[in-house]
């Protein structure tokens, strides 16, 4: 008990120091845009063609960073599969899912996948993009896992999708290096802003990221289900 009180006091003291430092040095909402942020906002549409500035930062301006984070995601999924490889599910009598759940999820599943597709195709026009779209697709698969008795996505197909998407991402980057002398450069025509077929390689990269994140998250869920 006394250790808990001491920990509480110490942690809240540091929190108080952090709060007062932030509140004095960074007044809320009074920092004007300058430097790279102002450049991205002013010139972003002319240079990359996407009306969603956050999208063009994630995929092109800081695209190398995103490649690294996708690699971290891949490592986490692989490590989880490695850790849970030898574990066996204990045989137990499970109650069957009711008819309502089974039928509803069977009809809802393609619609959820369609919704995920909508999110990553319109990533450069509306909020969204590859990362949330992949998570939406994985949530659709999770819905099937809990509501259907015999539902098992093919392990081979999942890992093949993941590896293929990762390789394609690197190839898109190298294409920019070959044609425009910088990794992940926008080599395709920009088109008219605010239409679906615009913004060069941004929709292509977001489609790749959507497939990759979706298959990785589904793989994580499938491994955890079987453990």
């Amino acid at each position, binding site marked *: 008990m006394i250790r808990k009180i001491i920990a509480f006091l110490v942690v809240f003291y540091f929190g108080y120091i952090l709060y007062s430092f932030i509140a004095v040095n960074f007044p809320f909402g009074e920092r004007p845009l300058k430097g790279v942020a102002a450049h991205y906002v002013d010139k972003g549409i002319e240079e990359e063609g996407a009306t969603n500035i956050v*999208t063009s930062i994630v995929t092109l301006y800081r695209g190398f960073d995103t490649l690294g984070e996708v690699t971290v995601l891949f490592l986490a999924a692989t490590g989880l599969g490695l850790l849970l490889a030898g574990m066996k599910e204990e045989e137990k009598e499970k109650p069957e899912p009711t008819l309502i759940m089974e039928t509803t999820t069977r009809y809802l599943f393609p619609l959820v996948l369609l919704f995920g597709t909508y999110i990553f195709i319109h990533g450069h026009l509306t909020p969204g993009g590859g*990362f949330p779209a992949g*998570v939406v697709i994985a*949530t659709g698969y999770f819905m099937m896992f809990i509501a259907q008795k015999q539902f098992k996505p093919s392990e081979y197909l999942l890992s093949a999708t993941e590896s293929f998407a990762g390789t394609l991402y690197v190839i898109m980057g190298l294409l920019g290096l070959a044609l425009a002398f910088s990794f992940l450069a926008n080599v395709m025509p920009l088109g008219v802003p605010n239409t679906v077929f615009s913004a060069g390689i941004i929709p292509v990269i977001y489609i790749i990221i959507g497939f990759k994140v979706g298959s990785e998250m589904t793989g994580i869920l499938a491994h*955890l289900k079987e453990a």
Partner: protein
Amino acid sequence: MNNLILFMGFGLSLVLVVATFVVWLSKDLLVAILGSAVVSLVASIFFLILQAPDVAITEAAIGAGLTTGILLYAMKKAGRYEDD
């Protein structure tokens, strides 16, 4: 920032504080997981108030089902109550 939005934000921060205390104090891990889901809900609203819809949509997609699912799969294996 508008006064109406501030009023709503302070009301929702009460939810945030209560949910955090539920995560801390509950002995039942299922209730703690529910508390963390509520924190994720309020964080998504805060991201939209701060004009970050991209982040809000990601937090919504994560918090709406995936985190709860992963934690439930682990909790099935690790036991529901804190004592064992």
